[in-house]
């Protein structure tokens, strides 16, 4: 029974979902109460996750693996969830009657992702992915704006998502057939010996599709721009931060399992990474909608993250973990600004940021640091993440890949600068109302600013942590 201790964070989110389920049964819920409950529960969830971060062991007939790696990601997930909930005070973008469902689905989704990062068995992986995906399928169309955008988004996300999952399960079936096991550890042992069989290759590629879909790598990206644009700001934030964590963790774990010097896999990943970076950055240049722009940038970032992963080395995995963390912080900073500026939950055009430096200096600063971070400019955390990733890649000798990555970073700087220009240089054409920034948001911005700079300049302890996490991978 002692083993259940390992499962406490997940259990907590189950009960959290339950609480909101109960809320949703009531006809009318005091919004303030709901929000406060959510924040408190989110905070407790974060504390619980952190408290159980040092656990390790196996559960459920070894289908569930709790190690430092998974726990670190669970902390990221809990953190991301907490932040998103924290930023939901108004939640104007969602129908008020659905707020309790909203929080419930977020809890469930987090639960699914937490399970995903710990899964060590194909069926568990599949179920966890589906669990989190179903919650997101419902979260995405949950929006209250004029127009039909949100249903369109919902249907597209759903269709592409289930297609990807069908691909994945079809691929998994082949892997199962070839390796005669569903345990990832066994598969990893057997797979290299049979990698030349077509069934194994098809299986592996198709199975990876599911993860790449989650990570929004090219060519599984096509949901990302639409979803980012169509979903409510908070939901987009959640997808862009927490959901990305889980996907990254899964790819790392899965690729890590396949282990060894599988040049075939590496070639595939290099190709995907280059194409993702280039595609994401190029298309982002011409975007006008800030969230859509960030969607394309997320495609590019998935590519950068993949560079760390495809090194298939400890340093590579740890750098990818660090990058994921960096991405979480930076992206959240940017989305926080979007949520705060678009108070009524509308979509934000880049030009609507005009004069932000006067309307709210602190948000403007947060935005600038976040965007510079995304562009990989020191002394922000984004730079350190890129630095680690590229260092890992060069240790493997992928010089050209790194140069392409850096050129891409330069291209990306262009559109980030356009956003910064809007915030700092443009004078608003028609006077936008001043942005209300309450103490909460101010504190949040401060924390993010400090975090971005601190993680950028003093990465030592966090690098050590991610390395330990990478070491705990089997």
């Amino acid at each position, binding site marked *: 029974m002692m083993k259940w201790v390992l499962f406490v964070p997940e259990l907590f989110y189950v009960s959290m979902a339950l609480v909101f389920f109960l809320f949703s049964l009531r006809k009318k819920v005091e919004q303030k109460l709901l929000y406060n409950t959510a924040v408190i529960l989110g905070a407790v969830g974060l504390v619980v996750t952190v408290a159980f971060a040092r656990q390790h062991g196996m559960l459920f007939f070894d289908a569930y693996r709790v190690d430092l790696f998974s726990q670190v990601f669970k902390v990221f997930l809990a953190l991301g969830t907490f932040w998103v909930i924290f930023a939901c005070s108004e939640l104007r973008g969602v129908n008020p009657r659905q707020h309790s469902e909203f929080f419930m689905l977020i809890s469930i989704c987090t639960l699914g992702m937490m399970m995903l990062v710990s899964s060590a068995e194909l069926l568990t992986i599949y179920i966890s992915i589906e669990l989190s995906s179903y919650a997101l399928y419902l979260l995405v169309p949950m929006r209250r704006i004029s127009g039909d955008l949100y249903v369109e988004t919902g*249907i*597209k996300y759903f*269709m*592409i998502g289930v*297609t*990807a999952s069908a*691909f994945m399960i079809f691929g998994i079936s082949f892997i199962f057939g070839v390796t005669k096991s569903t345990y990832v550890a066994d598969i990893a042992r057997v797979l290299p010996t049979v990698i030349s069989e*077509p069934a194994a*290759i*098809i299986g592996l*590629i*198709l199975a990876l*599709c599911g993860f790449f879909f989650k990570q929004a790598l*090219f*060519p*599984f990206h*096509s*949901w990302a*721009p639409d979803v980012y644009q169509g979903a409510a700001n908070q939901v987009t934030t959640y997808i862009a931060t927490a959901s990305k964590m889980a996907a990254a963790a899964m790819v790392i774990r899965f690729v890590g399992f396949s282990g060894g010097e599988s040049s*075939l896999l590496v070639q*595939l990943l290099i*190709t995907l990474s280059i194409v993702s970076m280039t*595609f994401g*950055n*190029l*298309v*982002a*240049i*011409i975007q006008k909608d800030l969230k859509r722009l960030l969607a394309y940038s997320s495609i590019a970032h998935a590519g950068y993250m993949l560079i760390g992963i495809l090194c298939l080395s400890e340093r590579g995995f740890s750098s990818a973990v660090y990058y994921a963390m960096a991405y979480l912080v930076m992206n959240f900073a940017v989305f926080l600004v979007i949520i705060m500026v678009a108070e009524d939950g509308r979509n934000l055009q880049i030009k609507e940021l005009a004069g932000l430096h006067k309307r709210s200096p602190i948000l403007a600063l947060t935005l600038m640091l976040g965007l510079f971070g995304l562009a990989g400019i020191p002394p922000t955390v984004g730079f350190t993440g890129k630095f680690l990733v590229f260092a890992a890649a060069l240790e493997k000798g992928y010089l050209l890949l790194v140069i392409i990555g850096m050129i891409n970073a330069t*291209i990306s700087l*262009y559109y980030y600068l356009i956003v910064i220009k809007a915030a700092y240089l443009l004078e608003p054409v028609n006077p936008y109302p001043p942005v209300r920034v309450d103490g909460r948001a101010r504190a949040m911005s401060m924390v993010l600013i400090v975090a971005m700079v601190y993680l950028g300049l003093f990465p030592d302890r966090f690098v050590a942590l991610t390395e330990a996490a990478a070491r705990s991978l089997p």
Partner: protein
Amino acid sequence: MASIFLQDPILPAVALGTGLPFLAMALILIFTRHNPRLSSRISIGAISVAVVSAVYLLVKLHAATAPIQYQTAWLLSDTLTVPFGYLLDPLSLTMLMIVACISFLVQIYSLGYMAGDPGFSRYYAFQSLFAWAMMNMVIAPSMLQLFIFWELVGLASYLLIGFYYEKWSASQAGKKAFVMTRVGDVGFFLGIILLTLGFGNLGIIDINEAARSGSMSSLLITVSGLLIFCGVIGKSAQFPLLTWLPDAMEGPTPVSALLHSATMVAAGVYMFSRIFPFFAASPDAMAFALFIGTVTMLLASTMAMVTYDLKQVWAYSTVSQLGFMVMALAAGGYFAGVFHLTTHAGFKALLFLCSGIFIHHYHTNDMRVIGKSGGRRLVIPIACMTVGALALSGLFPFSGFFSKEAILGVLAGHPNKIWLAAGLLGALMTAYYSFRLIFFILFPAGGIEEKAGHAHHEDIHGHEAHEGDHGFTFWLMVIPVMILAGITLVLGFFQSSFEHFLVGAGVDAHAGEGGHGAGHYVLLVAAVSMALLGILGAWIEFGRKGAAQQGFLSKFPRVWELFARRWFMDDFFRRSLDRFVYGGLTSIFTRNDRRVIDGGIDGLCFFTIAGGRLFSFLQSGMLQYNLLVMIGAVGVIILYFLI
């Protein structure tokens, strides 16, 4: 410190004499810009100290047997040392003396000439800058120091030529002077670099010693010698870089007297004589120099024969005399060259300062106007000017006679007599154009017009009211002139002692100097008769009563134009500058910069953005199209890995 001063008073004397002007310049520019009186006093004070120290050094060292050298490292880099110090030998002492004295006289003169000018302080600051740079150049112990101050002298020249910067032609002339001398200086610099690389030491004594003892390869001497001679061409306005000097007359007249006749332009000749043994070791370089000097002398003389501008005449004459000096040196006449340099400094400064008085008085440079306005009434200046002109023409007993004789003697000693013929022809033309000018002023064609031009009437009247009693400023200008005239009168008689001082203690005299004897008298007669012939010609055409004052050249308008337009040299420069620099390389490079390089970068950015637009078609709104893209990509990947 004090003990050093007592033991060796030379160092502080040099330091004081050559350093104070710099201090003066700094003081004037920083503090006393708005106080012209004080500025001029500071400057003149500094130059007086320089004169005193120059005299002191000359007196103290005139009997010294060996050159006195002192140097500290200004800069040490790797094996290269840039020394800063002095090398005192008869040559540098002489030149120091010339520079200090003439600077002093000119600065006194300028008190009158420049009085009331808004840029009075600035003028004295630049004068001090010049004095500092020139004196340090003169005493330089190494070619590198010489080059450094050589450049600084050029800077002072630029600033002083363009002193009236609001006048477009003045600033243009300054620019022209700087750039043209820069062309020569690049050669000079390259020559120095070659010497550094090939020989490793730039000490003047070392170079001369090495060249004399033959320890330097003759190829190196010739190549670097020719390159260094480029510096002479630029600085001393030799052919083909001679046209900047006449233009430089845009500067105030005292400046022309000091820089552009007596001292600065002589720097080239001075440098030539400084490393004379080095040049002498290369017959090729010497021959080249002789040729250049001759061409310069003749060309400049022809130009002087047709201009009506007072200062232009003396400017051409300066060029021509510089060419004459170069000829002397190149023909091996070390003493003759230096001696002519000395005497020329005296009488040419005299000529310019006299002209300055006229120009100051009549506000015009045109000799005909001056003559008609009654130039001869300024008795002292016209007398002094005549003295100068006589000296220039080489007539006894003026200083020019002696030095010119010496040079002709040297040329006579040269195996190829064509140089002597050229020298004599030059003497003829010199006398002609000098006295053409004198006669224009003395005997204006229609007599003196009592009515001055309307425009100048009141102006002149005002001046006459002011200077009718020969006011203080007038005397400030006249006294230096008289001093110089006196020097011109007597200097020639010190020829032998000067020769003893210079050659006996310094560098050996080379062949040709001993051209005395039977041939000497023939030469003497020839030279003097040439000068007299020239004066006679001028008298016939300009001096005698009823002379047409046209000159025989006006009968050949083509030739006149050729001479007046400086043998089309300026047109040539202008056109090549326009065609090759502005129209050619500049426009090609600029277009390349804008279109190719910058356009390339912009194009790259444009294509990147266009790429974004292109790729965005992949993301169409149609769901199934997106799915197709995705599935197609998976198919491609699978196919790639299966095959």
